[in-house]
């Protein structure tokens, strides 16, 4: 069920995603150092989270301030599945995504709200999960956290636990999510969701069940955020509520997606990479404490220069250089 689109071709989109994969593999072949590879892994985790946020924001018009809840639930669920039930880690990760999606069911009443009311409701919801994780010491270890749970395994001789293996796995999952995003956006459901984001009544009056479509988007977004939470948990090897449910997992994907251009698929991915690397390599060295303030300044500058983010800026530069070549 594919919807025609005037604005993009599937070949171009698939080409861009292939380009993303190739570009992403470059550090592996160039023998990037462990430290930089570690940064890239974290940046890609943020890319996945930003994509899940943009899926909800772009397709459905729901601005979430609570993705930390899904990320945290996914982190804990996967660690607990693996540690307490002996579920293989690669099975525990998608299962954790399902648990994160199930946790989003509690948010369904908030779908009746719109704009800032939805954003505030989901923000409150994420806090509830942080408190639950802190108080349920019998399950989560409480504030002391979880440390003894399996990391990423060896698969067909490939050690996913080392940085290169983890990097490849996270990159693959980001690419898969990007493909799913493209397929949804190009379907009739995706077209209807974009329309819902603009005028819900105009879509309902032509037969679109906006509540059901928004529900599916919320569940899918929560699933993806949960999967990246789970991946992160098995890569870093420890969990505590203040980390897994930190507000940073709600705020950073918003900054990354808006900076990159949340209406495109690649915008959130590259936005997250640029923002994370800038934060870790530049901002932290300039202002060791409170370095996030520079991210705010960077985002404000981007919005002023290109309201649709980095993807708009890059598109503009390409058009300008194309025009110059044509003139020459």
């Amino acid at each position: 069920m594919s919807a025609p689109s005037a604005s993009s071709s599937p070949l171009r989109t698939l080409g861009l995603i292939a380009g993303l994969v190739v570009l992403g593999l470059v550090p592996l072949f160039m023998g990037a150092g462990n430290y930089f590879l570690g940064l890239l892994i974290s940046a890609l985790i943020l890319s996945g989270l930003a994509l899940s946020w943009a899926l909800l924001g772009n397709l459905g018009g729901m601005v979430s301030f609570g993705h930390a809840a899904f990320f945290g639930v996914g982190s804990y669920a996967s660690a607990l599945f693996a540690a307490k039930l002996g579920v293989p880690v690669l099975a525990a990760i998608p299962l954790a995504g399902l648990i994160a999606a199930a946790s989003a069911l509690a948010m369904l009443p908030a779908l009746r709200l719109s704009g800032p009311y939805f954003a505030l409701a989901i923000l409150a919801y994420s806090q509830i999960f942080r408190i639950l994780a802190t108080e349920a010491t019998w399950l989560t270890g409480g504030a002391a956290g979880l440390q003894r749970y399996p990391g990423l395994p060896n698969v067909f001789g490939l050690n996913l636990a080392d940085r290169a293996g983890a990097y490849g796995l996270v990159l693959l999952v980001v690419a898969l999510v990007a493909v799913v995003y493209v397929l949804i956006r190009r379907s009739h459901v995706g077209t209807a969701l974009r329309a819902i984001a603009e005028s819900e009544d105009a879509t309902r009056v032509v037969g679109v069940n906006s509540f059901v479509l928004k529900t599916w988007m919320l569940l899918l977004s929560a699933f993806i955020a949960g999967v990246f939470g789970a991946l992160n948990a098995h890569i870093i090897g420890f969990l505590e509520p203040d980390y897994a449910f930190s507000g940073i997992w709600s705020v950073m994907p918003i900054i990354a997606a808006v900076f990159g251009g949340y209406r495109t698929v690649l915008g959130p991915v590259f936005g997250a990479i640029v923002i994370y690397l800038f934060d870790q390599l530049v901002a932290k060295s300039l202002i060791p404490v409170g370095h996030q303030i520079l991210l705010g300044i960077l985002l404000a500058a981007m919005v002023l220069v290109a309201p649709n983010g980095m993807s708009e800026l890059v598109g503009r530069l390409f058009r300008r250089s194309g025009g110059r070549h044509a003139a020459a």
Partner: protein
Amino acid sequence: MLRLEDVSVRFGGLIALSGISFSIQKGEILGLVGPNGAGKTTLFNCISGLVRARGRISFEEREITALPLHKRARAGIGRTFQIPQPMHHLTVRENLTVAQVFGAGRSDPARIAEILDVMELSGKADADAASALALQELKRLEIAKALATEPKLLLLDEVLAGLESQAKRAFMLKLRELHKLFGLTIVIVEHDIETISNLCSRAVVLNFGQLIADGTPEAVFRDPQVMKSYTGAADA
């Protein structure tokens, strides 16, 4: 085809509609008239499901009073808004495709092409986002979108408003063509007496949320009570 029985709507202390009862037969073109604030758009909102009403609304012998908006559209009730509400960032064709897939439950590009052709929007189908259309084109898109859901009953809310007389006459001819081509039943909200007289076989008049007349346009517009409420003068 459509039956309203004792339909009432209250917004807080304001009674927007009070005990409205009438039926619409299949194939009719009915004019819904009345001064501003009479309750015409509220009545459309009740029929299409945007506003919950007390009383009973039946469509094709099935009670739809509690049916949600999207299910009424799928049942065959199409509507337009007084201020066009296109899906702004989508192209004209995408607007119609969404309406067809979700409203009619099928994807038929040939039918979309036919609607675009009839509504004289073929040249704009894939050009720009709907938000770039001029007012007249937006009004045509509004109707085209409703037609894409394959409605049996089409509710047109002041689609002729703001058009100068020549454009209005052309639009009236277009509505007659649609009525015949798609076998529609049409209810149209319109202020212009001449338009209602030329286009409609029957007129229903609302005033302060109450139904005050129901009959042929000639009979209705001879009614002194109607003329007093409608024009403010008994002998107008």
